[in-house]
């Protein structure tokens, strides 16, 4: 094998290995005391509550643009009555989970990478270990569960606002009938559409937290290293979301 390729392949497998080791440790530490509900609460506010405005804004405009695009297209087939169903099903099945996850990767994956990275280079993570506290238990368990719980909650909000965005555009801009539009929205949607979107987003939440923490946890090389970890946390989390989205969608339908 060429000298250029081999170290890169090795590095790839090291990364994958670290990911699964950390994932396993998060599960292994979760049931063990002491339970740090204060940390969990702090993280839930930071990851969930603080992300509400940006997630809602994104969902509103995504719903609106979906209506704009599909209205123009479906009109060619005289099928503009189905805009409501199309917007709603695309939102709950795909757009709300994936877009919210990508926003969370940018907002929180990067923050986790930077925070843990700084703690690593200033020896705070070593200090945790010395103080008989496993850093996975103390830092990653609350972040992982906060992200896993809060992303589906954000997606529920995004679903509603996205559908509202589509409604505003269709009814306000294209003069669709409000009553038939609403009826149409829920006509073809079933529970599985919603639940599969929520299951996906829970998995995305966990992925974002593990990848962000992993990048921070293994930071080397001072301030520059922290910058590198932060960037990589976002890039890798986003890629992981998009790739796993494909396989999860395949699995869940």
């Amino acid at each position, binding site marked *: 094998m060429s000298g250029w390729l081999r170290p890169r392949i090795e590095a790839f497998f090291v990364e994958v290995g670290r990911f699964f080791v950390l994932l396993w*440790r998060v599960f292994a530490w979760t049931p063990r005391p*002491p339970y740090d509900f204060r940390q969990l609460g702090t993280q839930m506010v930071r990851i969930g509550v603080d992300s509400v405005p940006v997630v809602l804004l994104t969902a509103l405009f995504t719903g609106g643009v979906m209506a704009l695009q599909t209205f123009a297209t479906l009109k060619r087939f005289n099928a503009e009555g189905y805009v409501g169903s199309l917007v709603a099903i695309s939102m709950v099945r795909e757009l709300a989970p994936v877009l919210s996850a990508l926003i969370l990767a940018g907002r929180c994956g990067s923050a986790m990478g930077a925070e843990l990275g700084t*703690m690593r280079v*200033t*020896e*705070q993570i*070593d*200090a945790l*270990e*010395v*103080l*008989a*506290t*496993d850093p996975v238990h103390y830092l990653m368990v609350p972040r992982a569960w906060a992200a896993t719980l809060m992303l589906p909650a954000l997606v529920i909000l995004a679903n509603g606002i996205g559908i509202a965005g589509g409604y505003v555009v269709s009814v306000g801009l294209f003069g669709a009938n409000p009553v038939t539009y609403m009826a149409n929205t829920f006509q073809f949607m079933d529970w599985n559409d919603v639940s599969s979107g929520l299951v996906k987003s829970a998995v995305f939440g966990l992925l974002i937290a593990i990848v962000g923490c992993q990048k921070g946890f293994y930071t080397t090389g001072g301030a520059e290293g922290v910058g590198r970890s932060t960037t990589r946390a976002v890039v890798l989390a986003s890629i992981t979301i998009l790739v796993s989205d494909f396989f999860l969608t395949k699995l869940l339908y």
Partner: protein
Amino acid sequence: MTAKPVQIRLRGVAKSFGGKRVLAGLDLDVHEGESLVVIGGSGTGKSVLLKHMIGLLAPDAGTVEVDGVRLADLDYREITTFRRRFGMAFQEGALFDSMTVWENVAFPLRRAGWPRERIAARVGECLDLVHLEGAEKKLPAQLSGGMRRRAGFARAIALTPKILLFDEPTTGLDPVIKAVIDGVIVDLRRSLGSTTVTISHDMKSTFRIADRIGMLHEGRIIAIGTPEEIRACPDGRVQQFIEGRADGPLSD
């Protein structure tokens, strides 16, 4: 000195980072209750040595034994509990920067499940020992370098560890603060009776706090003995280092 039981025993410890050999089959015994200072130039692996003693780093070869337990035999959960017998003070203090001084010192006690009143009492005691009364509510960023280290000491001694490790406690401080920190280290030892291992390249503080001095060079302990023995050591490298000369076998 009569031979006290060995508390930390390192045998043939070797460690490399990315092909660079830092420790090359190092042997070292630390006896119960003594104050050992490991000296050596910057980048010779003194901190790496310290991190092996507490299991933050695992050796590529060789063994580290603490109180007769091989650290390599412990899994990651056992070692977490095992570390309660250690207190370690880091170079820059390594205080948790989102917590106040009080919360930093209380942290190990909270994690060990102490009740609230006992934590408050113990944090007060520890801050008194390092002369930091009144700084409880400050954040690490608001402290001077010397205060940060003392706060780090207070956190390290909170659980009255049997072994105390100090990683370059006086590096980058002015001479007066250095003397204060050395005094604090000597006081802590006297009041806790712990075994201490200190990493330093400052000869003045080394002679102030050491019962024994070991010199690390090229991954091995090249000389070890009482301060008098080290002062009289015939090895040119040791002499150059303790006298701080620019020319000699170390610079060749």
